[in-house]
């Protein structure tokens, strides 16, 4: 496994009140994303464990783009990756934000 960690400044913090959300599954070409409210409101931390080594620069681009576009402040995001493509990663991250912002029932 290759482990990568990012700590990024976020301009917008995540909405909603859910403490956590999880999306995806660890399978070939797929990943799971666990989102928890833990970081300061202007910070998003992302920890990645990936089976595909040597793609640090791609991860860097994808997570920076994600934090710039979405309301990710205040989140600690943990990823187990089974070799997903960057577009799949971006979709799962967006799906995770949507899920943690869902109203609680």
């Amino acid at each position, binding site marked *: 496994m290759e482990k990568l960690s990012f700590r990024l400044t976020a301009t917008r913090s995540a909405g909603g009140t859910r403490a956590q959300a999880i999306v995806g599954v660890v399978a070939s070409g797929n990943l*799971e994303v*666990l989102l928890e409210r833990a970081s300061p409101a202007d910070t998003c931390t992302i920890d990645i*464990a*990936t089976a595909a080594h040597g793609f640090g620069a791609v991860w860097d681009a994808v997570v920076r783009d994600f934090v710039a576009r979405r309301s990710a402040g205040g989140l600690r995001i943990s990823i*187990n990756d089974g070799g997903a493509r960057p577009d799949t990663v971006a979709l799962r991250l967006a799906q995770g934000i949507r899920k943690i912002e869902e109203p609680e029932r």
Partner: protein
Amino acid sequence: MTALAANDVSLSWYEASARQRIDALVDAGSFAEFIGPEMREISPHLAIFDLPEQFDDGIVIGRGRLDGSPVLVAAQEGRFMGGAFGEVHGAKLTGILRAARALKQDMVILFDTGGVRLQEANAGELAIAEIMRAVVEARRAGVNVVGLIGGRAGCYGGGSLIAGTCSRLIISEQGRLSVSGPEVIETNKGIEEFDSRDRALVWRTMGGKHRYLFGGADIFVDDEVLAFRQAAIDALKVRRRWDPAVLKAEQKRLERRLQRFGEAKDAVEIWQTLGLDAPTEIPALPTDAFLRAAGKRENADDAR
């Protein structure tokens, strides 16, 4: 409980994830997970093999309500390592079954598994034995344990043994239930014995229709989450006995079944012997017509 509590989503059981299945199965908003992904109770073995881990180790356990009644739930995620049993995965299922017994609460198990995880095989095999014991002890205490089978990975290996100890089994056409999987049989016995690439053969031998006709499963449903939900509600209404008399009767039934069908070379021959009309048409029948045609099926009684 009123109709307000019921879910109304239309979703394929086969395509859904473990978490989607639970959400659609229990009353809306009633599920509370135990040892969730945030606890990070991951496999202690996979890192040794440099394999990816999953935060819930491929099984979701918790409690919810089914038509208003409290129920404990376990759902395997068939897409993570084929839903296979490892140490943590197995311990979570053992633990919730023991809770079912202690709390005297009914339990549903959403199977989706290829069997024991090879990278932690000893722990996995031990888990299978512990789980079967926990099912039996829960049933002896009067708890219903209902199994639901219709996932991508089917219900194979140790998973099929656990299924055999459940009080009722609900299966869809897509569900497969067998001890050995197609590739395992072909590898050990040769392609003449079983061609694992012959999908029609796999489905008519291990698939839901045959398992239902043969008494290996008790309730046949469409590949639809609401069909599984309704069948689970119905299955939990009836208390199944579990004592030596029931087991002896089941043993006799299985001996009779072996005498009656032991020489059959193919599932179609079994359907013929059962006296079904147009046995070759069985795989193509839609659910309604299939259930009408299945009137003379084998019945598993209370032992299952």
